[in-house]
């Protein structure tokens, strides 16, 4: 187990290294980074001064070392618009993103698991077809359009919910539902197939042969085991939700990381864009590592 964990950690470190090199190199091959880091109306003398100040006149390896040492100390550059460190901004916005992702996750698990199980239990019948249709719609509907539809209906037509901002549960309802759409469908499909697997297994057959009532078999034997893959998958999806929320957060002016990224685009605030992308990748790599380890802990066969 220790060897397995060590190996996974090494892989994760390699991925983090490649990630940082990718970001570093892409910025430099696509143009002059100074134009991204300075105000658009800066003069050539100012640009040269910034180059020297940021060390951009040195060789790439030296620059990379500078960049990575800074990043390890939490220094991702200074926001051009807010004039504060980009890392600080990121941490300020993180709680809002986490809150939204948690709410969206709750919605997607609640709806996804219940319809998924109904579909698996009634396989081939009405509930199953309805579930398939809902899943297909959920997977095909862009989250931001779902958000716009919700605003049109619940905020403009009915006037029930506020269209933007953060504060009360009413503020959170629409963004959470919009963000959860795709994931509800994904969780529904996974629950259905996992539940079908479990229902076809030997121990469920045995439980039925023992003469247990069907509801007891479903709840006590099938449900719990069918949920294992869904819950692990949900862990990764939570991290994804935080990072794909940019369009939904923009629609609802939700002050999270996605909104920060959008402001980064709007204000041509490159250090902020770079920070959000880099830390998003780091978050996914760490989450994958944790899931790998968790899986190996649950199922010893994987350690081979």
């Amino acid at each position, binding site marked *: 187990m220790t060897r397995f964990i060590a190996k996974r950690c090494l*892989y994760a470190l*390699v*991925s*983090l290294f*490649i*990630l940082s090199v*990718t*970001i570093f190199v*892409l*910025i430099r091959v*696509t*143009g002059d980074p100074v134009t*991204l880091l300075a105000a658009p109306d800066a003069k050539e003398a100012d640009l040269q001064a910034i180059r020297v100040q940021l060390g951009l006149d040195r060789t790439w390896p030296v620059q990379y070392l500078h960049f990575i040492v800074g990043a390890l100390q939490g220094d991702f550059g200074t926001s051009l618009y807010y004039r504060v460190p980009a890392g600080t901004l990121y941490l300020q916005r993180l709680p809002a993103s986490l809150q939204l992702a948690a709410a969206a996750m709750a919605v997607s698990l609640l709806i996804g698991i219940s319809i998924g199980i109904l579909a698996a239990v009634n396989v081939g019948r009405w509930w199953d077809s309805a579930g398939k249709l809902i899943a*297909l*719609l959920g*997977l*095909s*509907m*862009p989250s*931001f*359009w779902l958000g*716009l*539809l919700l*605003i*049109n209906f619940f*905020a*403009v*037509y009915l006037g029930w919910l506020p*269209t933007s901002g953060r504060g009360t549960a009413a503020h959170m309802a629409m963004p959470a539902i919009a963000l959860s759409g795709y994931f509800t469908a994904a969780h529904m499909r996974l629950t259905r197939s996992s539940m079908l697997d479990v229902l076809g297994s030997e121990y469920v057959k045995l439980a039925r042969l023992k003469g247990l009532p069907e509801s007891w078999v479903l709840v006590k034997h099938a449900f719990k085991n069918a949920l294992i893959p869904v819950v692990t998958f949900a862990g990764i999806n939570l991290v*994804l939700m935080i*990072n*794909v929320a*940019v*369009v939904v957060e*923009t*629609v609802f002016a939700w002050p999270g990381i996605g909104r920060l*990224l*959008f402001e*980064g*685009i*709007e204000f*041509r605030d*490159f250090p902020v*864009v*770079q920070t*959000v*992308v880099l830390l*998003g*990748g780091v978050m*996914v*790599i760490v989450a*994958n590592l944790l899931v790998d380890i968790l899986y190996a802990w649950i199922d010893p066969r994987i350690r081979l």
Partner: protein
Amino acid sequence: MRASTIPFGWSPAWHRVRARTRGAPLVPLTIIGVVLAAALFADVLAPFDPEIGNLRHRHRPPAWVAGGDSSHLLGTDHLGRDILTRLLYGARISLIVGFTAAIVAGAIGTAVGIVSGYFGRWIDQVIMRVVDAWLALPAVSFAIFLAVLLGPSEKNIVIILAGVFWTRYARVIRGEVLSLKEREYVRLAIVAGCGKWTIMRRHILPNVINTSIVLSTLIVGVVIVAEAALSFLGVGVPPPKPAWGLMLADGKEGMMAGYWWVTLFPGLAIMLVVLAANLLGDWLRVKLDPQLRQL
């Protein structure tokens, strides 16, 4: 034969057509056919100019709503541009960007996957670590990052989306190649003295192409949504082009005033195309590549 068993209008010709197309995914093919026709014949079908509107006809509702008129079937936007016209022209942008990006990503990813899987050892290690790292980057934010670096244009969007999505092909194709290269016919080809590149081209590539096609169909949908998202955020197709994502962004301002139709139809168009791509991908997956069924 009683009349009730054969509905009126079901001629033998229709039966023959139906027999030949049995099992074909009619719903997605119809949607794709309609969108393709819209894209090809936009200049003929569209009644107005897609980029220039009539400011006196701003925010006209769709024809069937009170206040709408039949010249603007789906209404107009905040600049008085006809929404139906923009939808038809927008189909061009979506399809061209979506298909080109998916094909370019597929070509790169398939080539990289074959090389990585066939050579194995350190080459495979290096390539797969890069693929892992790139896959970890959330697609939307990675695409935004590249878009900010490269600047907005249709050509750049294709480059950006291909750069973001090739890794998904590479991972799957590499896995297929690992098992293919142990097959008898590949070993015989080696014994027969075929060069490495010949084997990859003649013996490996034809066997992974089905997987690539299935993946492409599914990725076209993802790419079209990604393009719409980039355009919506202002780093995709530059205005005033009639990209569907841009139309949604344009409609956002007027929503509070009740102009719901500006945001309804472009999103519906995106959803239908993606739905068709998903359905077609699922069908092809079963048809072409039974091994991928659980994917």
